[in-house]
């Protein structure tokens, strides 16, 4: 189908009406790759995954496979995983340590900066190819924020910290919470969901309204739900990014402010003692307000998300309009004792990741949403995103635009951002 230049039919001017086809249309999907994934900062991985020189992980920018590697001088490089000779992937592992990436087809060999170091056939021919022009294609911009590595295909993109804006104030709640930082333990958990990539992101931007219902079998009637309704806020720190937090009132006992990570694992006295102890240091590092802040879920535009209570970081890699390769990791304080790490990860594996109970319910809802979006005769029935319209505003203690916990402004701003990116991209190219 041809794409009309009027993008207001996809996302209404106030963001309250979203066309079903933005989740299903192949032509819009191609524009997303071109004007969103190739233009914005995309999360690659965490520095704890590539601490030593030679360490690498593989990742994606949309559907494009990349190698994220640490070179001998400690610099981080992101290169497209495709040989300059015939396009074969030169790295076939999820992670590891190596000085050389060797193409299996003709043995062209690249170093961990992506530079071409040898062509075996070169000795047998007269014309010597200019190897300096034949490295892996590099992703030109790579920057980190508190251990989170991002890359951008657009050399002209603003700095990562400008891009994140006030999101950093909230990211620090985990990524600057502990003196020794946090770490990722193990390879990503990866699974396919038959949904559009935007829906998992939208869900983590602040969709807490589904909690007691979709997850009713586990959450209905729990104190967590009451607490959220009482103290919860949906925040848009910068249009596109979004999050949901609970800001506990002044004077709330420390054990009710412990990042909300306690969960089932927190019933273990050792884990509980660890959480209480580590919480004592928070106000010195992050200030009094953030010692009362219990983050719930975050998304960073376009496709990075977090769930705080279950300590998981996740990315939504598109695989066409109707499929998502979802990646998820468990994150923990680096200096936490080993037995605490092992016990706390239960809050993740039981509820999230491919075997998680809550995750299974989310995945189901997202793929059912795709079914409902991908039907005929409903083009006149846009999805309603108007809950809480006009209610959000500044807050005395937290940066960004702050609304109630059921205010869908996080999604309106996300899709308006989406529309603006495509609109600008298409008109720029027209």
């Amino acid at each position, binding site marked *: 189908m041809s794409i009309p230049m009027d993008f207001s039919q996809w996302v209404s001017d106030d963001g309250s009406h979203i066309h079903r086809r933005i989740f299903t249309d192949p032509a819009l999907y191609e524009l997303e790759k071109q004007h969103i994934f190739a233009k914005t900062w995309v999360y690659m991985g965490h520095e704890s995954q590539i601490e030593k020189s030679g360490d690498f992980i593989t990742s994606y920018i949309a559907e494009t496979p990349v190698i994220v590697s640490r070179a001998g001088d400690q610099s981080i490089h992101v290169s497209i995983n495709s040989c300059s000779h015939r396009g074969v992937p030169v790295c076939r*592992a999820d992670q590891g340590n190596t000085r050389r990436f060797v193409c299996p087809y003709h043995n062209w060999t690249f170093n961990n900066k992506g530079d071409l170091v040898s062509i075996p056939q070169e000795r047998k021919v007269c014309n010597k190819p200019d190897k300096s022009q034949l490295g892996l294609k590099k992703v030109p911009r790579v920057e980190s924020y508190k251990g989170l590595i991002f890359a951008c295909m657009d050399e002209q993109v603003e700095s990562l910290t400008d891009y994140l804006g006030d999101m950093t104030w909230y990211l620090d709640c985990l990524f600057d919470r502990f003196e020794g930082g946090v770490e990722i333990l193990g390879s990503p958990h990866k699974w396919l969901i038959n949904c559009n990539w935007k829906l998992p992101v939208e869900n983590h931007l602040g969709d807490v309204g589904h909690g007691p219902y979709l997850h009713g*079998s586990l959450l209905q009637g729990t104190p967590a739900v009451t607490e959220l309704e009482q103290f919860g806020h949906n925040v848009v720190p910068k249009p596109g990014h979004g999050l949901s937090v609970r800001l506990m009132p002044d004077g709330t006992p420390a054990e009710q402010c412990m990042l909300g990570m306690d969960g089932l694992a927190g019933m273990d006295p050792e884990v509980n003692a660890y959480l209480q102890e580590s919480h004592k240091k928070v106000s010195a590092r992050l200030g009094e307000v953030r010692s009362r802040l219990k983050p719930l879920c975050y998304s960073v535009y376009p496709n990075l998300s977090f769930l705080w209570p279950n300590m998981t970081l996740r990315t939504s890699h598109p695989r066409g309009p109707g499929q998502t390769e979802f990646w998820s990791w468990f994150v923990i304080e680096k200096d936490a004792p080993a037995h605490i790490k092992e016990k706390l990860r239960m809050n993740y594996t039981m509820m999230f990741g491919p075997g998680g109970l809550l995750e299974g319910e989310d995945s189901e809802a997202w793929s059912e949403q795709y079914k409902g979006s991908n039907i005929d005769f409903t083009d006149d029935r846009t999805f309603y995103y108007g809950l809480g319209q006009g209610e959000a505003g500044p807050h005395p203690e937290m940066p960004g635009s702050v609304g109630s916990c059921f205010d869908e402004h996080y999604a309106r701003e996300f899709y308006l951002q989406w529309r603006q990116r495509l609109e600008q991209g298409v008109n720029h190219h027209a």
Partner: protein
Amino acid sequence: MPEINLELISRVEQFYFREARILDNRQFNQWLTLLTEDIRYTIPSRHVPQPDLQKKETEAFLSVEQELSQGLETPYRDEDFLILSIRAMRAFKSNSWTDSPPARTRRFVSNIEVLASEQPGCFEVFSNLMVSYSRHQQDNFFYTAQRKDLIKPEEESFKIAKREVILDWNVITAPSLSIFF
């Protein structure tokens, strides 16, 4: 050390076939009675590691173990009796949306191999598992896995004291690993 003879092997096989039938019939509470209360149920995550050249030319070069999460690396699942019970009981709630309507599952258990165990009176059992999983109209998926169990003779039958499920995927091409393998 109890003798591993054909009669024992046959009893173990019957135990596994019964377990599969109970799970396919969605009798999850009955399934819980096949577990010891100190069961450890794990599904390690699986990835593609960089080949370790120091091990080349040996069988260790291709070992499955190096592809599985070890130690503190995050597994897909790591559960005790309490968590398995929560999963089982949850399935019967009307608002348990991933189980209502329920999946149509069919488990095929094969390659049952009974070995002596270091744990007195217990047996180590390897088995292969294939699960056909079908939900809604045509959301159909297949799982394949190896299971490494520790089983304990109890009265006329056995109980599962330990289960490790080795799945055969890197990217999981099914919507969830939330079922009982």
